[in-house]
């Protein structure tokens, strides 16, 4: 067991610890609401398991920073702009209008060079994997909806049996 193994796997062990705590609550506590809390903890640990898998070293969140998006966009546009500028230059003698456009084209082209640099820099950014995020994002909302369903069942059980104690409910069931 080297230090490297620990540094690489501590996230899984943490997740397992949390998972087992939730499992223990479900097993060892008789109160139904407490069991739902235990299930919630278990659920969150599963979310964390997926999220830790998506992480990349030195990565950043899979949301492209606004500055870089702008740079990419203007790089696209300046391609077109530079081409138009070239055409205008070709027919330079025709009119002042053409010269104006050409100047504009040159400016855009310069801007384009800057943008290209930015895009190049953007290529160095490592993004973490977005797929686990997507899966877990929907799972959280579905999880709260199903938790609400479980709690609704608990409420009904309390109304019918007069208790939320699991063993007491089983006794009542056997007695009838």
């Amino acid at each position, binding site marked *: 067991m080297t230090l490297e193994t620990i540094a690489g796997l501590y996230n899984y062990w943490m997740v397992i610890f949390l998972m087992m705590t939730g499992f223990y609550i479900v097993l060892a506590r008789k109160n139904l609401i407490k069991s739902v809390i235990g299930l919630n903890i278990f659920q969150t640990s599963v979310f964390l398991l997926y999220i830790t898998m998506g992480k990349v070293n030195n990565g950043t969140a899979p*949301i492209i920073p606004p500055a870089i998006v702008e740079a990419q966009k203007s790089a696209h546009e300046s391609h077109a702009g530079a081409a138009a500028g070239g055409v205008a230059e070709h027919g330079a003698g025709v009119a002042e209008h053409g010269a104006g456009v050409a100047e504009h084209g040159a400016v855009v082209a310069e801007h384009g060079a800057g943008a290209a640099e930015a895009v190049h820099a953007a290529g160095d950014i490592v993004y973490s994997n977005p797929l686990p995020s997507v899966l877990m994002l929907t799972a959280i*909302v579905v999880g*709260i*909806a199903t938790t609400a369903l479980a709690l609704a069942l608990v409420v009904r059980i*309390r*109304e019918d049996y007069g208790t939320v104690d699991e063993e007491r409910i089983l006794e009542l069931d056997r007695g009838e």
Partner: protein
Amino acid sequence: MSRFPIIRIITKLLIPYILLFALYVQFHGDYGPGGGFQAGVIFASALILYGLVFGLEAIQRVAPPRIIEKGMALGVLVYAGTGVLTMSLGGQFLDYSVLEHHVLTQWHVPSGQHLGIFLVELGVGITVASVMTMIFYAFAGRKHAHDT
């Protein structure tokens, strides 16, 4: 919570901001963190906060259960309807690229994919907000077990 005037005032002050933030999360979700699921939950949180402070009757006057009930289904309909729309335009189900247009380009909806994602997220947001609010109504409207 009639005994807590300060909480009532602060809640009144805060709820517009929470709703605004929910809308920001909904419509800015393509650009920053956020989206329909989060926005729906935040929107429902604002309604729940109002209900907690001013009582169930007050919140049901603001957001009547009849309307919220319909919102639950409406969201899924908007989502599936987007799919049907893309089919009727000649694409596959939920294939947004057929929604390509040149109308909304000024308003940060430059392409068909953007428009499709926008509609779908809207549907998700409506459903999640309505379901969460309705669940709160169901729990809050239940009578005490000790009373019966």
